[in-house]
């Protein structure tokens, strides 16, 4: 099955990976993205993620459909955590099941890159001496048809 979800609970990586597996597949590639302690040398105490939830779910669904169209893969599962996250906690899991591993690796890399560019989720880094909403690094998606 395919799924794109948001949750405020800790993410169970193994269960995400298991849910995408169909019998015809030979490999599942799973990305475990988690909270880094240092960004540009500054120590982060914790993170806070916020989403424009209905739009984020729609954009995740678009990515899943696009990935299944462009890569030789069977199923995609994406779960992104929201709310307060401690250092080392998983913020995002992307699992891609495919008949062969090569396409699964390529699709997983494409999915995280696009998620960071298009899915409306924002990260706030909280430091000992303040907090900053992080601006995305990538250009936003071009708008089709105005």
């Amino acid at each position: 099955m395919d799924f794109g979800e948001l949750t405020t609970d800790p993410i169970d990586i193994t269960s995400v990976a298991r849910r995408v597996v169909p019998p015809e597949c030979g490999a599942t590639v799973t990305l475990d993205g988690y909270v880094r302690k240092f960004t540009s040398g500054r120590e982060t105490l914790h993170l806070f993620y916020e989403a424009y939830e209905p739009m984020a779910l729609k954009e995740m669904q678009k990515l899943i459909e696009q990935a299944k169209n462009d890569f030789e893969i069977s199923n995609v599962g994406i779960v992104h955590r929201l709310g307060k996250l401690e250092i080392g906690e998983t913020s995002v899991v992307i699992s891609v099941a495919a008949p062969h591993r090569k396409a699964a690796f390529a699709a997983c890399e494409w999915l995280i890159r696009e998620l960071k560019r298009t899915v409306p989720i924002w990260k706030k880094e909280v430091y000992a001496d303040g907090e900053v909403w992080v601006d995305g690094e990538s250009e936003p998606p071009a708008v089709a048809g105005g």
Partner: protein
Amino acid sequence: MSVRVLFFGATAAAAGKRETYVEVADSSKVAVVTDLVIKHHPNLEGHKLLFSVNQEYAEQDASISDGDELAIFTAVSGG
């Protein structure tokens, strides 16, 4: 017509609120609404802003209709 405008992350912090309503002429462009919102919330100036209408990315010259939901936010930073 009345347009509901949502803020998230950096724009919610800059505006000091999560949503607002603005009154504009029927069939106004996104730019008309956002100019008005920025005028009322000057802290939004200086941010590179992105827009969505009814939960789809939209450009400044897109038209909006009565009851549409517009969101103003900065480049996304999930992952």
